[in-house]
């Protein structure tokens, strides 16, 4: 088991955003996390990635309790792509891909404080190519299309081979062709043994790639089924209840 969440609570003022949430996730699976706006999906994932601190409860990742900061989570192998992609739009693509994990120049086996622009540009270009995206890595992120920005965010997440990748509405702003590419990418991540938690309002996307569907409502998990044991109609009906 890769991730075990037990008895998680989180309040925002008087709002109980997470109410005794427990969830287990196996290695190499794709979990679809669904629910209405405000159901607690993003809050739950922010707790996993250290962007929010839970009030109570425990999160164990890969056998170890995870720290409480984004840095700790990343060190443990958890990456998250936020819905707004978290890009720095005035910086170039390479700078965005390597944000927080810059390559430094080494001289005579010693690390210098200087960034290795050449190596980062080459790695960034290679990563972008694996996503079949046509992007000039020296361009400012703000000058890219929505699909290209999504590719940059995915490339950043994949940079250091995460064990768990959380994707928040990755297809929300994409055209049909780009959605297919992203879904294919999720399949290939699964084939590589990477666990993916996919938060999406597009149930059809989740049914295409997920192994399990976890449904949240009012900060609680109300349904947790294997995709093979449920259907799009059933899930839609449960969501409408």
């Amino acid at each position: 088991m890769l991730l075990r969440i037990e008895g998680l609570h989180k309040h925002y003022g008087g709002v109980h955003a997470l109410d005794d949430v427990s969830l287990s996730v196996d290695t190499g699976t794709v979990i679809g996390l669904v629910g209405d706006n405000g159901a607690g999906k993003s809050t739950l994932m922010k707790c996993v990635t250290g962007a929010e601190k839970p009030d109570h409860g425990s999160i164990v990742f890969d056998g170890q309790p995870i720290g409480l900061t984004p840095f700790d989570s990343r060190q443990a192998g958890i990456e998250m792509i936020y819905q707004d992609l978290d890009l720095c739009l005035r910086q170039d693509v390479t700078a965005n891909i390597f944000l927080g994990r810059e390559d430094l120049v080494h001289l005579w086996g010693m690390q210098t404080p200087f960034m290795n622009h050449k190596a980062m540009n080459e790695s960034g270009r290679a990563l972008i190519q694996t996503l079949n995206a046509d992007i000039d890595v020296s361009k400012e992120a703000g000058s890219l299309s929505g699909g290209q920005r999504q590719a940059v965010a995915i490339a950043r997440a994949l940079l250091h081979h995460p064990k768990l990748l959380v994707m928040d509405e990755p297809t929300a702003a994409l055209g049909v062709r780009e959605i297919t590419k992203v879904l294919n990418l999720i399949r290939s991540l699964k084939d590589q043994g990477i666990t993916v938690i996919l938060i999406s309002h597009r149930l059809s996307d989740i049914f295409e790639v997920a192994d399990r569907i976890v449904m949240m409502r009012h900060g609680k998990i109300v349904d947790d089924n294997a995709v093979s044991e449920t259907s799009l109609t059933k899930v839609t009906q449960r969501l409408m209840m």
Partner: protein
Amino acid sequence: MRTYLGLMFVGLLLLCAVCSFLSDVFLTWPNFLNILTASATIGLLAIGASFIIGSGGLDLSVGSLMALSSVVAIQFSTHSPFPFLQTLCLCLVVAAVAGGVNGFLIGRKIPAFIATLGMLSLARGLALIFSNGRPVYGLPDSILFLGQGRVIGIPVPVFIFLGIILFCHVLLRHTKFGRYSLMIGDNVNAARNAGIRIQRHLIWLYAFSGMLAAVAGLLFMGRVNAADPNAGMMYELTAITATIIGGTSLSGGKASVIGAVLGALIMSVLQNGLTLVNVPSYYQQVAVGIVLIVAVAFGQWRGGHAATN
């Protein structure tokens, strides 16, 4: 950015051409050195401001930190066996601590404008208290050499300025410190989610700005032969103007050390030219204000134009 810097350089040359047309003295070697020496003080503050504004912040306290660090350093180093070393260290430490306090407060969500405005008043007040409101004379020769000395005929402040320009350009463009400063200014949430420790970075960033102000203070007191508690008054305004002229974005995420230096040179040439044609200093303040407004308006227009394109 390179095109913009090219335009600024052409603007500087045009300004020099106008000044040389208005004054016979302008285009002389001593006046050229005089401009460079004056640019060093403002330029150092402008370089610090380019880091700070590039990070989406603001530091109004640098002029006061210049005064405080130099007054404290001289007061406590007069009878030291190593006056130069002690003055230098005290100067840097005092300004770095005060700057670090700025960064700490800003990291705790206090607006940069308020935190540094408070420090502006606090540091100026402390400088006046430590000096009893009077300039402190009797500077060690080594400090005077920093402000007035010459090597192969060129003032020492120019060499120090050039060295710091190079250092800061590399720091901004080629190290994580510079990159994170711009990332924080561009999208602080992205930076935080990427694991950058924002609070810690802001403390170092504002401490660094304070240290540049301390070096500016050292050069200034060496030049005027006194640690003046009123030194650096309104210098922050000129430094911010120079930074904005140099292409640093007021909304953060973009900054240029070379741009800040060009901006400082433009401001120094402007003030020098106005002095040479006998424009009173009060009017020079008016000119600085007008240049600031024009620079900000141009910067906003440029930002909007780039976004539209």
